[in-house]
């Protein structure tokens, strides 16, 4: 399952992540392109007891790999 939060201002990346985590899926990839979004999504995912791995994609874009 993927969330594309590129180009969205906070708190929208977190809201999309929150919705994606509603049914507690095993893994979700969140695509982001701002440091604020990386920080906010990571903080929320950790609070929801998910592990977060940050993978650089391209040109300032990152994939946050959320897993239980």
């Amino acid at each position, binding site marked *: 399952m993927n969330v594309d939060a*590129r*180009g*969205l*201002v*906070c*708190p*929208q990346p*977190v*809201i999309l992540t*929150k919705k994606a985590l509603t049914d507690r899926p095993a893994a979700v990839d969140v695509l982001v392109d*701002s*440091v*604020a979004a990386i*920080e906010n999504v990571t*903080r*929320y995912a*950790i*609070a929801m007891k998910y592990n977060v791995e940050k993978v650089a994609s391209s*040109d*300032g874009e990152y994939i946050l790999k959320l897993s239980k």
Partner: protein
Amino acid sequence: MFKEKNLVILTGFVIGLAALILVAFGNPTNMGFCIACFIRDITGALELHTANGLQYARPEIFGIILGSSLLALLNKEWRATSGSAPVLRFVLGFFMMAGALVFLGCPLRMVLRLGGGDGKAIFALLGFTGGIALGSFFLNKGFTLGRSYKQKTVDGIVLPIIAIVLAVFSFADLIGDASAAKHAPFFLSLGLALIVGGLAQRSRFCMVGGIRDYILFRENRLFLGSLTLFLTVLIGNIILGNFHVSFTTDGSIWFFLSMALVGLCGVLLGGCPLRQLILAGEGNGDSAITVFGMVVGAAVSHNFSTASTPALVKTGGKIEIVVGLIIVSLIGYVIISKQNKEVI
């Protein structure tokens, strides 16, 4: 996580301290920092309105934008982006300013006024919270102004360059009428604002975000920054003998509604007036457009006498607030009702 929280708390403390210092050195009462008032004064300095005493190109605004730019550059976060519904952002910026000029203060100054003992700000805070709650409802229903996209670097440096040019003009006394406006020394204002801008860029300090994130996620990180700001100013004013309790219910409904408008616009825009300046400094063109909307909002508020005076909320201002609340709510409603049919 602990470090992030401390940074927000530090930002709230430094803004409060800087506000106390700037008032002690000449800024108007409870107006150490007020993003709306200072943008209004810059608008006046550019003669887009001619309200006497409100025509000083305040260096605080330029310092905040440039402090944010510098820190974003240092941390490689500076990035020219835009394209997220710029016209709607202009309109929301316009009404955010209109609301702030009926209450006479942005969310920052609302807290500074509370910390100075001004009881009217309690109604404003209640309204602000209500506006944020309504905005959060729209966000939960899928409200979005859409994505922004990477732009040419030159697009992102327009506002920072304007800030530098106007700061030079202001220092050289080429624009406005500094002598008619109460103000702290130029370099003290600029220097403290650079620090505030840099810290707020790092910590993402936001007056709207504090309440919004608590409503949406039960997260108190940004709220702790606002709370620290309030406590710093409260304690500082008591020590300095500037804490004077005043309370009247006159006009309370209008302070409530005007700050509800500011809170609602702030949530839909993704941040309070201070946060818009910080984002614009980071190269966000959508926030730069929002700032231009605020400038036009200030010009209209004074040219058409809808801005309040400390003693009086004007009829035009009341009409503007009601119209603003209807228009902004409609923007929210239309976007969420179309949300499922349009791709983000």
